[in-house]
């Protein structure tokens, strides 16, 4: 990573990319093995239709190449995914996997980006205010709220938000603006797109706001005791200014680290329960439906897609360390 001395940037980046490919490959093999180790995973009977004859089953199995040895099947699947691009689903015959992912990706991106903005800003504000007013009622209250957010399972909170905004309080001024569930593309207008996503953004962000605010406050309070902060205080700088200009940046190391992990995972489809509850057909819901029907091609594709974003996000975080805290020199 930059600044570690001695190595050209290009070599570092190439090395990192090679490592990323290894990780993705490894995970794809793991998925494949898990699938075939699962009894009942053979999709032939489900594809062939209820109560098919044995001959029909055999024909279907041959058609899908399920009677070939496993390494051959793996290579064929990967070839159709990456080389020829015509990998098709087991559960929905003839439906290509890559267009499915391309269609679903913008929806997940919209959900996760909006929620990320919300939780980053929210956690920063909450964390700084709590740290600045530490040990007062405000601090305790804010941290209490944060912890309530962390303790709520997202599938429960999402359903409760639906219960209030779509059903019980739908006709009151609070929620009469809430449109029907289900994604409305940006091309159909900004207002419907935005209004549809507000409550899902909030639902997804609540957990992370609590977590990040809590961690940020703890780090701010600790950083406050560092020598360089005492220097700043001795210099007569105001407490808020010290907090924001000097204490915040090093305190952001864990914040940024967790953000890389969470954002990478979410873009890859970790928000599946949120997407299901709010009827958003993103990567998360795609993964969920594929898992329910043990649809190997789609599962493979979504897992590889997700792992790409995870490793990419972590790589970017490692680069960001240098900008945040000059003392951090990672991975030589």
């Amino acid at each position, binding site marked *: 990573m930059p600044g570690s001395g001695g190595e050209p940037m290009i070599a570092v980046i190439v090395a990192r990319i090679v490592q990323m490919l290894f990780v993705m490959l490894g995970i794809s093999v793991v998925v494949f093995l898990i699938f075939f180790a699962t009894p009942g995973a053979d999709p032939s009977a489900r594809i062939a239709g209820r109560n098919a004859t044995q001959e029909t089953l055999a024909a279907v199995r041959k058609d899908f190449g399920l009677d070939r040895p496993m390494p051959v099947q793996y290579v064929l699947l990967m070839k159709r995914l990456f080389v020829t691009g015509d990998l098709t689903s087991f559960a929905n015959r003839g439906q290509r996997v890559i267009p499915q992912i391309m269609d679903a990706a913008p929806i997940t991106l919209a959900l996760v980006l909006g929620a990320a903005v919300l939780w980053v800003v929210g956690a920063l504000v909450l964390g700084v205010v709590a740290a600045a007013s530490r040990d007062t009622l405000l601090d305790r209250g804010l941290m209490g709220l944060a912890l309530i957010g962390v303790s709520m399972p997202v599938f429960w909170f999402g359903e409760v938000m639906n219960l209030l905004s779509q059903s019980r309080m739908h006709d009151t001024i609070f929620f009469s603006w809430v449109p029907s569930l289900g994604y409305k593309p940006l091309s159909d207008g900004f207002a419907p797109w935005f209004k549809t996503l507000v409550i899902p953004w909030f639902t997804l962000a609540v957990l992370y706001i609590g977590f990040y605010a809590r*961690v940020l406050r703890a780090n701010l309070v600790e950083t406050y005791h560092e020598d360089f902060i005492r220097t700043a205080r001795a210099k007569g700088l105001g407490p808020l200014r010290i907090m924001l200009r000097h204490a915040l940046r090093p305190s952001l*190391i864990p914040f940024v680290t967790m953000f890389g992990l969470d954002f990478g995972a979410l873009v890859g489809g970790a928000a599946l329960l949120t997407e299901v509850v709010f009827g958003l057909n993103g990567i998360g819901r795609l993964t969920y439906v594929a898992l329910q029907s043990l649809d190997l091609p789609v599962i493979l594709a979504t897992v590889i897609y*997700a792992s790409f974003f995870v490793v990419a996000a972590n790589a970017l975080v490692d680069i960001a360390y240098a900008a945040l805290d000059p003392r951090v020199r990672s991975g030589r």
Partner: protein
Amino acid sequence: MSGGALSEALAHPETSAADGDLGASLAGSPAGPWRRAFRRLRRDRAALGAGIVLLVILVASLAAPLYASLVSRTDPFRSNLSGKIMIDGKRTPIMQPSTEGRGLGVTPIGPTWRGSYFLGADAQGRDVAARLLHGGRNSLLIAGSATAICLILAAIIGTTAGFLGGGVDMVLSRILDVLWAFPVYLLAISLSIVLISKPIIIGPITIGSGSLILPIVIIGLVYAPYVARPVRGQVLALRNSEFVLASIGLGMPTWRILMRDILPNVSTTLIVYIPLMMALNITTESALSFLSVGVQPPDASWGTIILDGQGLLYTRPAVSLAPGVAIVITVLALNLLGDSVRDALDPRAGLRR
């Protein structure tokens, strides 16, 4: 934070007035840092309160069978769909068919606020309050163990990667990447189907589908990167801080540097994560139970009761709210206690007030 605590206390004598221990140590009495911390903790009223709350939760969970047999007088694991109880002298059925409109649907009774069915019944006619207490045992056990595994792993991996750097850091970081990107749901679904017919046997340990080892290990492993990477970042920063560089320069052995300088800082970070990971682990456990890995029906955990309550959200929200409130109280108490422990361990704590 560490290193030279005594000198800093000397620099700010006015703040130690309330801190009799500091004065005592200055006066020469041999109270070590741990005993000092303990004494400080004892006087912290918030910590005391939090500790008592946690103790109550623990005792109540352990006393769950007593509650079930003496107070609620029901079997929390037995379906009771045709049962009736006495409310205000009337025998009321526990599962009540709708009598209005088209007469569709059957609803379990709501909270009676009495000994029997204090919080009402769930979809199988079982006493929610009794199941809540039983559920506490499973939740606290699973989440507690998973949190412990997660934090210990995170401490070891994060510290090793951050301190040693280079190739070790690269390998460990990629392992963390694989763990974080791992398809956990797929593994859980697969395991649940595999374990229907045959348990996994590793040496002397037999793991059936109801075994709690599975969710504990899975959750502990899956969340290890979430704490390990921040720890690694922190250790990377510490590694290059003046006092560590000084210690290295002085030729101090690595393990002593780790124990004296790195680990104490890492442990205060970990303490912050404890209540957060507990909350996260309880809800992850409910997702795993939904996929049939971990707590199996009719056993309960707070997470599975929330799941049961999902199907009753529009009619009996108490079923999913009650375990949610229990989780919040536990997490808040742990957080308060954790804060107080960190304050007590921090030699510069007296400076803050």
